[in-house]
């Protein structure tokens, strides 16, 4: 049984200390409002003790503080920053550090060990501040209300096996044994005939409406310019030919299976060695595409063939821009 109010108290103390001593200029953390147990990520600047007192840690801290950092990079540039992360956020942060998107010396990382995430919408709200949030191996309770981990639909949490966070400050203890990444959905799909598999994935590709919600919500999708949808380099009648030549159209904006396939397959490749399996793309998708079915294809290859895990260590070179002489060859590559 894990009780979150004491962990929250410790977190508030750490954050308060950091701000007071001037170790950081601001902190990104989850805070609680009127709608308990729902939380949101908030930027807390020095002197905002009212906000520090609202900082919480619970399974309802589903949103990613790293996505917040990514979105607000320009506004936060050059500031000494504290950031509260859970396991998958820590991995994502490591990926961004590996790629020099953020500087480690600008950050104070406060890690919260996570047992899995829970959907606040499934509970009656609002709950008073005195109602205890607890979790154990089977599920999460808010006061007397109880839901099982399986009920929340956070499938990536059920197969999460990451438990080697090394932040500057660490709170909480794991309350349940983390599983090995057993990707049942993938095994089921891989057992199909290639033609059936193509059908399955073609149906996913077909329903995509190219809203790019998956890209926006992804904590590690942080390219300045997206190859698929280059907003900065939009081609207008006034674009000079030289600029046009520098902006290849990899996939047109047309909503067509062939273009959607380019987008989604490219995304899977781009995420190779970077995807931290937080599952946010799948949850953000407005048409309910099982995006993890696609992304896990590359996650599986990266883990199985190259024994690489995204965000394991800041010192690891990024997967796709490194190589080993012992990397395997294609079957029949040399005669």
């Amino acid at each position, binding site marked *: 049984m894990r009780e979150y109010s004491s962990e929250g108290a410790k977190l508030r103390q750490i954050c308060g200390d950091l701000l007071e001593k001037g170790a950081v200029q601001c902190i990104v953390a989850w805070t609680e409002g009127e709608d308990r147990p729902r939380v949101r990520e908030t930027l807390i600047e020095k002197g905002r003790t009212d906000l520090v007192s609202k900082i919480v840690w619970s399974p309802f801290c589903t949103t990613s503080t790293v996505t917040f950092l990514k979105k607000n990079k320009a506004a936060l540039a050059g500031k000494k920053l504290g950031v509260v992360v859970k396991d998958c956020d820590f991995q994502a942060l490591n990926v961004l550090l590996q790629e020099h998107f953020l500087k480690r010396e600008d950050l104070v990382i406060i890690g919260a060990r996570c047992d899995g995430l829970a959907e606040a919408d499934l509970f009656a709200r609002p709950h008073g501040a005195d109602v205890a949030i607890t979790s154990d191996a089977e599920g999460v309770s808010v006061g007397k209300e109880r839901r099982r981990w399986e009920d929340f639909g956070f499938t990536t949490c059920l197969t999460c096996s990451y438990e080697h966070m090394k932040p500057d400050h660490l709170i909480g203890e794991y309350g349940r044994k983390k599983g090995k990444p057993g990707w049942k959905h993938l095994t089921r799909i891989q057992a199909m005939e290639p033609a059936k598999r*193509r059908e399955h*994935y073609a149906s996913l590709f077909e329903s995509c409406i190219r809203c790019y919600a998956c890209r926006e919500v992804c904590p590690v999708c942080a390219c300045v310019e997206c190859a698929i949808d280059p907003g900065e380099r939009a081609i207008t009648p006034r674009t000079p030919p030289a600029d046009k030549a520098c902006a290849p159209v990899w996939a047109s904006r047309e909503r067509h299976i062939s273009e959607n396939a380019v987008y989604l397959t490219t995304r899977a*490749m781009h995420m190779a060695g970077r995807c931290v399996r937080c599952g946010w793309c799948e949850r953000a998708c407005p048409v309910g595409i099982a995006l993890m079915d696609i992304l896990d294809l590359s996650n599986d*290859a990266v883990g199985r063939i190259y024994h690489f895990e995204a965000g394991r260590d800041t010192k690891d070179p990024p997967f796709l821009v490194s190589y080993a002489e012992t990397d395997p060859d294609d079957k029949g590559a040399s005669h």
Partner: protein
Amino acid sequence: MRDFQPKIVAFICNWCTYAAADLAGVSRLQMPPNVLNIRVMCSGRINPMLVIRAFSQGADGVLVSGCHMGDCHYITGNYYARRRLLTLKSVLTGLGIEPERFRVTWISAAEAQDYQTVITEMVDNVKRLGPLGMFRDAPVVARETPGCLEG
């Protein structure tokens, strides 16, 4: 009805496989004409998106061929290519594109015979597998372009 003629796109390295393909042509080695050779300066130049795009635009098979490990003109280009392209191959295989449709090979400038073997095998395999048809209604690139090497 005519036999299914697959369309194979081959990205080949200027320093080795392209020379091998050239040698195969000069040596009058017999090969099926279904291959569209695209010369690139290094297999490390092959962005996975090029392969994905080729498939989405109607290719039935894609071949990427570069220099043997250690022989890269740019020292390490093919090492990078190998990791990238084999990850891509796993993804494509997972999507249901048979492994025979996407091959990564290393063929040096002297190995014209190997080039012939790879092309022949690939065309045979893809013929057997039939059209890809995953991206149906995809705009089809003109099919009449013959391979640049007709026996």
